[in-house]
């Protein structure tokens, strides 16, 4: 008997959108090239034929306009899923997201919640160059009034959209570009995916790797190599970047006493910086080594493959950072 199905991350996202469209008539998908073209990452391929133009809406190239329209639709009682091609392009809609979506519920004394889900691709790894490859999650995670999530597994890609649509707050849902082609098992656990809370992805006693998004899999690779050298790494997948699940992170750090934060964002002003300080604030006396982090090099993501790889927080850098927390011999 088998409860699992092998699918890609892209397929998991598509199934999630299809299920939402089927189960709730208020849900519709809107964005650039989501209809006739099938989505720039082919996530919505076939949905136009299945659900029609009313619910799969191609928009003009104007992020500010169609994100604003999505916010308006949410205020009007619909459950829009707005797709922005990449987080880089979302900056054109930053005013709508930060000044409107995040604020209206609070400014109206709770009268006008904005239940919009804004999906956007994030991160590097596909040679899409600097204007399509950045990881700006931390900017959104900075803003009260928003929920920010980033599914890194097949189950979460399949399950978190449902939870996002059920949330009365605007949710920014990041999909790592480099994971769309990743294949994995879809398990029944996807059906109960929550919007918040971190998850221990791998158990280990010696060091905690705190990460999110595509870096989860860099950590998995690093943990495999470290295990060969006798270091058992525990991996915490944050899943939700706002709010952060301090309890899960601290519980793990208290067990292992060492922590490396792996973040595809740039180091300066990063989520890694925020996490590092929270760990020092809450678990200082449990630490056996300085808090360490591995982030993306502080350059606009380069186009050439070897330079792109060198800029990202790859497994070799994670392994080296972990080893630096142990004595020279280990």
């Amino acid at each position, binding site marked *: 008997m088998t409860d699992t199905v092998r699918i890609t991350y892209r397929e998991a996202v598509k199934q999630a959108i299809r299920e939402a469209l089927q189960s709730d008539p208020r849900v519709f998908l809107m964005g650039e090239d989501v209809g006739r073209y099938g989505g720039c990452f082919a996530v919505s391929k076939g949905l136009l034929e299945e659900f029609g133009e009313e619910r799969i809406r191609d928009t003009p190239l104007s992020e500010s306009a169609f994100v604003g329209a999505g916010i308006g639709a949410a205020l009007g009682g619909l459950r829009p899923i707005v797709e922005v091609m990449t987080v880089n392009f979302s900056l054109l809609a930053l005013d709508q997201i930060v000044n409107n979506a995040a604020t209206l519920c609070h400014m109206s004394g709770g009268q006008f919640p904005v239940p919009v889900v804004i999906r956007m691709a994030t991160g590097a790894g596909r040679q899409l160059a600097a204007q399509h490859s950045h990881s700006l999650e931390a900017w959104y995670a900075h803003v009260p009034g928003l929920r920010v999530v980033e599914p890194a597994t097949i189950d979460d890609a399949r399950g978190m959209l449902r939870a996002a649509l059920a949330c009365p707050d605007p949710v920014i849902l990041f999909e790592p570009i480099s994971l769309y082609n990743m294949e994995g098992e879809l398990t029944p656990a996807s059906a109960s995916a929550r919007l918040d809370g971190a998850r221990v992805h791998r158990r280990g006693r010696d060091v905690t790797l705190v990460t999110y998004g595509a870096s989860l899999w860099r950590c998995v690779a690093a943990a495999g190599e470290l295990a060969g050298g006798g270091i058992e790494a525990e991996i915490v997948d944050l899943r939700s970047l706002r709010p952060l699940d301090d309890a899960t992170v601290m519980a793990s750090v208290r067990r292992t*006493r060492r922590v490396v934060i792996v973040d595809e964002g740039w180091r300066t002003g990063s989520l890694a910086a925020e996490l590092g300080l929270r760990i020092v604030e809450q678990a*200082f*006396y*449990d*630490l*056996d*080594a*300085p808090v360490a982090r591995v982030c993306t090099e502080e350059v606009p993501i380069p186009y050439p493959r070897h330079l792109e790889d060198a800029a990202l927080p790859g497994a070799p850098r994670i392994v080296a950072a972990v080893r*630096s*927390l*142990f*004595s020279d*011999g280990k």
Partner: protein
Amino acid sequence: MASEFRLPALGADMDAGTIVEWHVAPGSRVKRGDVVAVVETDKGAIDVEIFEDGVVREIVVLPGEKVPVGTVLALIETGAGPEAATAAPAPAPVGTVEGRAEGPAPTAAPAAPGTGGGGPDEARFRISPAARRRARELDVDPASLHGTGPGGAITLEDVEAARREPSPAPAPAPAASPAGAAEADKAGMRAAIAAAMSRSKREIPHYYLSTQVDVAAAVDWLAVHNASVPVTGRLLFAALLLKALALTCRGTPGFSGFHRDGRYEESPAVHVGVAVALRGGGLVAPAIMDTADKPLAGLMEEFRALVTRARAGRLRASELAAPTIILTSLGEDSVDAVFPIIQPPQVAIVGAGAIVERPWVVDGKVVPRQVLTLSLGADHRVTDGRLGAQFLARLARRLGEPASL
């Protein structure tokens, strides 16, 4: 001019020591008497002083290294020589404290400017927060541990390991391990005592004398004195003994000095060493310097401090090497008399038993009196019994006149 700062012998039978820690770095200004390093010996970790004024030019021996007595530990730029004027570019203190020299470095290293030079936090004690908390819980002294974490930091594992294994390490701890486990210290100290005492009994022809002394006058005088001062100012009988012994040495040559290379040399100053039994076994005999010149109150204060530091394993090198004669006093509730062994290269040692009440004949009548048995172990190469008897008699007389001490 540069001078060489060498590892001093911190006791008669010390032939090597392990540098645990430097308190100075290249560029540091030092004064005569400054404690510049901590050296681990069989007698524990000892602060080592420097005997010259100057500026540290180079640290030659890094922490963790075990080197023989006489090894050059550091180069000191002393005063006015021509080299001092040019202020030779001090080699940077590369990774000294970590005990991991990162490359040779002497050439292009920048000069450490003036005082307070050296890298920041060079000598900083590194311990993780988790380890520090655990050490407190387990009542483990982190300073006694060897760190295995990054940069030599002490980790939680180090603390717990120290707690787990009261390490049955073999006597002379093999190199490195700064401030090794207490057990290893103890074994090392046992070996040191064995060596010194064996040498003493092998080389020194001891003769022994003893005499019983009526110390009622001294005991009464102490009671009166102590009743008139605050608790902190109270004297112990040991203070009287120390002072009386030092004064006796001064008046009777042949007992306070050193026998070296076949001849005896009287020490111009009298530094009485006090034998201190350590908790958990072992014995050290640090000196109270210039014992004869100090008032009783000062002696008492120094005596107390010395015992405390001896038991904490924090004696100064000079204190251990300095005694010109040792007093061993077994104290109350012990035996009547002790026949102690001379610590080479000294030539005499005085023992005091317990003060006990005994029948005593005074003016033809048997009365109960406070009696103390004093003994002298002396070197027959230097003195004969007759002089020894005089020495002991003079000591007894001084104790009979406490007010003059």
